[in-house]
C-alpha cells in the first residue's frame, strides 16, 4: 500500500515550501520531496548568499568612503574566509527556519529526488544509490523543481576556470580578477560584489544595455555607476570563445565589430537559468512541455489534471517571490479557497547600490500596448535622505494611465528601492490611482518621500523639483 497525501510538492525551494506550508495551514495532509536542502536555489545558492556578500562588500566600500563624514579608519582590510562563514551562517539560519516551519506545520519531508508517475504517484529516489526509497499517492501534485544555470554553447565554456554562480559561491579565495558573461541581475550583482572587494571585473552583455529587461534609464544609470567603480562594461558584445592561457582564461568577444578579450583568473557564466526537468517524469507521466519548461494554464495547472507547476520550472519570470506567490496560490486553489494574490504584477529587484526595482509597465511598454500613458519622475538628488547619505544619482518613475490616473507601473533606482516597490505593486494590482496614493502622508525625512514627489510629478507638481527648463 502506498502512503497517501492530499498534496505532494516536489521541491522545497521558495515555490515548493510556501505551497506546502499553505496547504498544511489549510488542513491538507502534505508532503514535500527535496533532494538537497530546503530553501532551494534562492536560499542556498542564489539570492540569499549573494545578498549576504553584497551586505559585506557594500559595507567595505562605505568604510572606505567614511572619510567624507569625518571618520578616520586607517588601513581597511578583510578576511574572505570569515566573510564566507558569515554568509554560510546566514544561509544556515534561514534554512533552519524553513525546516522548522515545515515540521511545525506537520509537513512530511521526503528526502530524495521526486519523480512523477502515472496516476499522481510520486516515486522518491535516494540521490546516491538511485534506488526507490518510497512510493506515494497524491490527491494533487505541485511540481516546484526549480532551475539550474544555463550553459551557452561557447567554445571553451567547460574549461575549469569557467564557473556558474554555484561554482563562484564555492570559491574559498577571492578571485583576483573576474570576467562575467551576462549583464542581467546575477551578473551585475556579482560585478558589484567583487569590484567592491577589490577584484578586477569585466562585464560582458550581448544586448545593447545592462539589465536589458528593465527601463533604459536604469540600465544607463547603472552602467555609469559601475564604470565609475572601475568595472569594465561591454554591451552589444558577443562572446566568441574562451581560451586557457597559463592558468588564466581569456574571454574573446566581439564589440562594435572588433575582436577584444578580457583575461582573468575566473570567468562567471551568468546568462540565465533553465528549468530543472531532467528525471522529473516517469514514463507516460510527462505533461506538455515547451522549450524545456512545463506548460501551465492560468491556474498553473499542467496538461495533467491535478498536477500543477510553479516557479522556474513553469518558465516565465524566474523570481523567488513569484514562485512563492504561485505556490501559495495553487495551494489555496487546491484547498478550495479564493487566492488573494494577483500574479500579473511581479516586482523585480536588483541589489546593486543604489538598488533597482520595477513593477508593471514602463512608459514605453504602455505606449507599445496602445495605452495613453504619462510618467511622473522624481530625481532623488533633491530628496533629503538621499543627500544626507550621499547617494549616487537615483530616480523614481511612476507610470500612469493618462485619463484615469491608474498606476500602471513604476521603475526606481535609489536606496531602499527594493523595499519601496511593494507599495506600487499593491497599488497597480488594486488599480489604485495617483490621487488615492497621495491620500496618505509620507514621513519626513525618508526615501519614501520620493514616491510622493514622483506621484505629484505626473501632473508637474513635485515640490522639490525645479520646473522643467527649456533651453532658450
Amino acid at each position, binding site marked *: 500500500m502506498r502512503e497517501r497525501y492530499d498534496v505532494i510538492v516536489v521541491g522545497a525551494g521558495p515555490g515548493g515550501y510556501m505551497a506546502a506550508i499553505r496547504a498544511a495551514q489549510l488542513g491538507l495532509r502534505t508532503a514535500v520531496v527535496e533532494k538537497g536542502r530546503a530553501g532551494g536555489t534562492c536560499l542556498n545558492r542564489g539570492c540569499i548568499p549573494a545578498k549576504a556578500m553584497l551586505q559585506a562588500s557594500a559595507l567595505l566600500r562605505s568604510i572606505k568612503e567614511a572619510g567624507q563624514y569625518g571618520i578616520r579608519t586607517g588601513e581597511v582590510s578583510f578576511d574572505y574566509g570569515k566573510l564566507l562563514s558569515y554568509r554560510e551562517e546566514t544561509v544556515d539560519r534561514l534554512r533552519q527556519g524553513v525546516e522548522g516551519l515545515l515540521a511545525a506545520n506537520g509537513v512530511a519531508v521526503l528526502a530524495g529526488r521526486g519523480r512523477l508517475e502515472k496516476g499522481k504517484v510520486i516515486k522518491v529516489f535516494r540521490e546516491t544509490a538511485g534506488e526507490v526509497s518510497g512510493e506515494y499517492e497524491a490527491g494533487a501534485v505541485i511540481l516546484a523543481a526549480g532551475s539550474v544555470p544555463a550553459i551557452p554553447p561557447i567554445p571553451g565554456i567547460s574549461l575549469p576556470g569557467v564557473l556558474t554562480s554555484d561554482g563562484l559561491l564555492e570559491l574559498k579565495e577571492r578571485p583576483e580578477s573576474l570576467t562575467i558573461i551576462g549583464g542581467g541581475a546575477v551578473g551585475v550583482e556579482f560585478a558589484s560584489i567583487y569590484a567592491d572587494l577589490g577584484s578586477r571585473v569585466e562585464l560582458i552583455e550581448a544586448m545593447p544595455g545592462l539589465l536589458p529587461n528593465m527601463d533604459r534609464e536604469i540600465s*544607463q544609470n547603472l552602467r555609469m555607476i559601475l564604470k565609475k567603480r572601475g568595472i569594465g562594461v561591454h554591451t552589444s558584445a558577443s562572446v566568441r570563445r574562451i581560451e586557457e592561457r597559463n592558468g588564466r582564461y581569456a574571454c574573446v568577444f566581439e564589440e562594435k565589430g572588433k575582436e577584444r578579450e578580457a583575461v582573468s583568473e575566473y570567468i562567471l557564466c551568468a546568462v540565465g537559468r533553465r528549468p530543472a526537468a531532467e528525471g522529473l517524469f516517469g514514463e507516460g507521466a510527462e505533461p506538455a512541455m515547451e522549450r524545456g519548461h512545463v506548460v501551465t494554464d492560468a491556474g498553473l495547472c499542467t496538461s495533467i489534471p491535478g498536477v500543477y507547476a510553479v516557479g522556474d520550472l513553469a518558465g516565465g519570470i524566474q523570481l523567488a517571490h513569484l514562485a512563492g506567490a504561485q505556490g501559495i496560490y495553487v495551494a489555496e486553489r487546491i484547498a478550495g479557497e479564493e487566492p488573494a494574490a494577483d500574479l500579473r504584477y511581479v516586482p523585480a529587484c536588483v541589489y546593486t547600490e543604489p538598488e533597482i526595482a520595477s513593477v508593471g509597465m514602463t512608459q514605453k511598454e504602455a505606449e507599445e500596448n496602445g495605452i495613453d500613458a504619462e510618467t511622473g519622475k522624481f530625481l532623488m*538628488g533633491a530628496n533629503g535622505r538621499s543627500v544626507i547619505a550621499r547617494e549616487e*544619482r537615483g530616480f523614481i518613475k511612476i507610470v500612469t494611465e493618462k485619463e484615469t490616473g491608474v498606476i500602471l507601473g513604476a521603475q526606481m533606482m535609489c536606496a531602499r528601492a527594493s523595499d519601496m516597490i511593494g507599495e506600487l505593486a499593491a497599488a497597480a494590482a488594486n488599480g489604485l490611482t495617483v490621487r488615492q496614493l497621495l491620500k496618505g502622508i509620507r514621513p519626513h525625512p525618508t526615501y519614501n518621500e520620493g514616491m510622493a514627489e514622483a506621484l505629484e510629478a505626473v501632473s508637474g507638481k513635485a515640490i*522639490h*523639483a*525645479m520646473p*522643467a*527648463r527649456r*533651453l*532658450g
Partner: protein
Amino acid sequence: MEVREGLLYSREHVWMKEEDGTVTAGITDYAQSELKGLVFVNLPEEGDAVTAGVPFADVESVKTVSDVYAPVTGTVAEVNEELADDPELINESPYEAWFVRITDVTDRMELLTAGEYAEFVEGIQGQD
C-alpha cells in the same frame, strides 16, 4: 563663452553640423555653462525618429532636467555612448561632446550662423 565658427545653431542652444547628409548635434557652450555640472544625460537610441523642434534628449544637473530639442527631423544613426558614461564631457568640451548623428534628414528648424547665435546669446545675457 565660445561660439564655434562653421557650425549652425538653434535658438534652443543646440549646435549642429551637416556633412554628406549626416547631421551631428550637441548643446552649446552657453547651454552647458547655464546648466553647470551635468550628472546624467538621457540619449535616444539608434533608429529612433527625431522631429525638429521636439525634445530628443534631456540633460540633468543635480536638481534640474532640461530637454534638448532636435534641430532637424530624421533618424538617429549613431549615439555618443561615451556621454552616457561620463556626462561631464559635455561641460568640459561641448563642441566635441556630440549627442547624436542624424540621417534621412527631411526638415530643419530655423538655424543661425555662429555670428547670429553669438548676438542672440548676448541679447539673452543683456536681459539677465
